[in-house]
């Protein structure tokens, strides 16, 4: 597998150093994880520009960006976790848990929403910590551990909501103190000309930039690649594997909390059964964006492009006005194409390297 220069994980020393080829600029470019996704994104973009007249306006573009951002913010965390070699299946429901904890606590006790938001943050970080701690201490694959957390949270979401509110949806929180300021942070929008920009889009850009910087430019970023690519060697060279992985799980929970806050403050009430299924969208975004399912390879920009491809495809089909019964089939074909283009570009770069 090929890597960009800065992100190279401390693999076992290569025995074939004499056979190394120096890569040209184009090859180095092609070897980056996000290039395949970028090409696929451009192709899909051109396709919908041609096929869907309604897709061509700036308003539509920003609706697509909004849709992408609600997936993309959590996907950044999930992507980093996957680079670190782990999965988190609880990432979808924890967004609903986050909102429910905040809204029901504040509603029941009549306290300021800020108190509930912070409590919810602590709770979500705790869930992330438990996920990471159990994976590291038991050695059970994260797929199973977080599947367990997924069910626990899903059930608790329903059970606790029913106990507290007497219904399976949370109550309207828009009249509780602190709503205005929290709404501004998590769920406001502003206009530029005729275009509505949701604040989640800006947060998304910020989180992606931050993640890209950490992955490419910091020592911690190198640890992510190391624990995902070769955990034993990583441990051998002194990377704090346990702390790194737990930190990654907590990052995913933090971003899940963030989107949970957005959903709560945009919609005021939450249905306790929601959020299920989104964990796969996050993983899909990461994979389409060039993250390896086996860990050790990928980057934040790629994951962002993956989320953008998902947002663009899911709304592009609507903009094109195609028969809705075929919706999922179109989506599947688009995603397969994106992954294939991705793979093709990667192959091309590998082939050139060998030749």
């Amino acid at each position, binding site marked *: 597998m090929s890597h960009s220069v800065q992100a190279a994980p401390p693999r076992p020393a290569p025995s074939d150093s004499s056979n190394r080829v120096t890569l040209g600029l184009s090859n180095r470019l092609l070897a980056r994880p996000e290039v395949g996704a970028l090409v696929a994104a451009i192709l899909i973009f051109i396709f919908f520009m041609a096929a*869907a007249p*309604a897709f061509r*306006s700036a*308003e*539509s573009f920003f*609706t*697509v960006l*909004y*849709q992408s951002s*609600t997936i993309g913010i959590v996907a950044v965390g999930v992507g980093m976790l996957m680079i670190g070699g782990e999965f988190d299946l609880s990432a979808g429901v924890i967004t609903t848990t986050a909102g429910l904890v905040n809204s029901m606590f*504040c*509603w*029941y*006790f*009549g*306290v*300021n929403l800020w108190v509930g938001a912070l409590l919810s943050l602590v709770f979500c970080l705790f869930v992330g910590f438990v996920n990471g701690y159990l994976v590291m201490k038991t050695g059970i694959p994260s797929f199973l551990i977080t599947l367990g957390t997924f069910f626990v949270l*899903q059930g608790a*979401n*329903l059970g606790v909501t*029913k106990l507290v509110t*007497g*219904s*399976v*949806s949370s*109550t*309207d*929180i*828009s*009249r*509780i*103190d602190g*709503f205005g300021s929290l709404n501004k942070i998590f769920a406001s929008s502003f206009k530029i000309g005729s275009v*509505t920009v949701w604040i989640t889009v800006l947060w998304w850009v910020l989180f992606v930039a931050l993640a890209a910087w950490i992955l490419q430019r910091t020592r911690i970023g190198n640890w992510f690649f190391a624990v995902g690519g070769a955990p034993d060697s990583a441990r051998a060279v002194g990377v704090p594997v346990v702390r790194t992985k737990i930190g990654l799980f907590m990052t995913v929970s933090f971003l899940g909390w963030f989107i949970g806050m*957005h*959903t709560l403050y*945009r*919609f*005021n*009430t*939450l*249905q*306790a*059964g*929601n*959020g*299920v*299924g*989104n964990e796969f969208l996050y993983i899909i975004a990461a994979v389409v964006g060039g993250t390896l399912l086996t860990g050790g390879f990928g980057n934040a920009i790629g994951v962002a492009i993956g989320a953008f491809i998902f*947002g663009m495809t*899911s*709304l592009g089909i*609507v*903009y*094109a*006005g195609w028969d*809705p*019964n075929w*919706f*999922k089939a179109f989506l599947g074909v688009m995603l397969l194409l994106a992954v294939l283009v991705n793979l093709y570009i990667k192959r091309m770069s590998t082939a050139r390297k060998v030749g």
Partner: protein
Amino acid sequence: MTTSRSRGARLVALAAVVALGVTACSGGGKEKTDDTSSGGGNAAGSSGYTIAFITHETPGDTFWDKIKAGAQQAARDEGVTLKYSNDPDASKQAVLIQNAVDSKVSGIATTLVTPKALAGAVKSATDAKIPVVGLNSGIDQYKQLGALMYFGSDENLAGQTAGQRIGQAGGKHPLCVIQAAGSVALEARCAGVKSAVPGTENLQVNGADDASVVSTLQAKLSQDKSIDYVVTLGAPIAVDALKAMDAAASKAKLITFDLNAEAAQDIQDGKIEFSIDQQPYVQGYMAVTSLYLYLKNGNDIGGGKAVLTGPSFVDKSNIDKILPFTKNNTR
């Protein structure tokens, strides 16, 4: 003595002030009243009957929560032991019915959403002389399957009625929003609307993700400006639809199926034209009650015909009366 008492009083006063400070300025929280809503009713099991109540509920849906609330209230009122279970998967629902038969319950109330898949299990119930009533779905098949009575709304009829009202108001191009892919009941509603207004178009959205519902709807409404009515098939989706219509600057009118507290408020505020309510609470309540009366008294409610719980219209004319009930989770 006096000092300690005054210190105690001061502490109490301080605590009161702190408590006031925290709570006083926060409106919109839980109303501080005594919770005695579940008064009355017989002790569970006092009638000696055990009724199994089996649905295809997807957990966490406000609609099903009302069916369940109705069934539980009926069980309380009649002293029936209620065994509620649910599974959205047809084959697993059939297993649940079989379980009820095996445990020799006095009666079974079940939704018949996938009649073919449930036929075997229902037959084994009737073979074992356990009375079965249908509710919510299966209006055309309940008799063939051997169920005694049926309580529910005719989805297609409900859709048609909604469509006729849209047509009378001059609607030409309604958008019917399906929040769960492949649901027979939801498709039947949209088909009903379409039979009354041929220009009806369907749209699929992901009902488990409100943000995605809004952006999908927003995309559709800006793609096709000729949409003059949006028909949502569940109350939470209607609330999302309002946000999407606002964002897309759509002039369409909104109607919905079913109710919840928010949607009821929106009807009162004039944001939703009307709701077609099939009264899920009644479906749950009547299914249990009818079995109770059949077991105790041999009664046959509906006289061999399905008992319709809807379509019942909720609009400006009657919302004031209905709104409080939606907050109690009974309507």
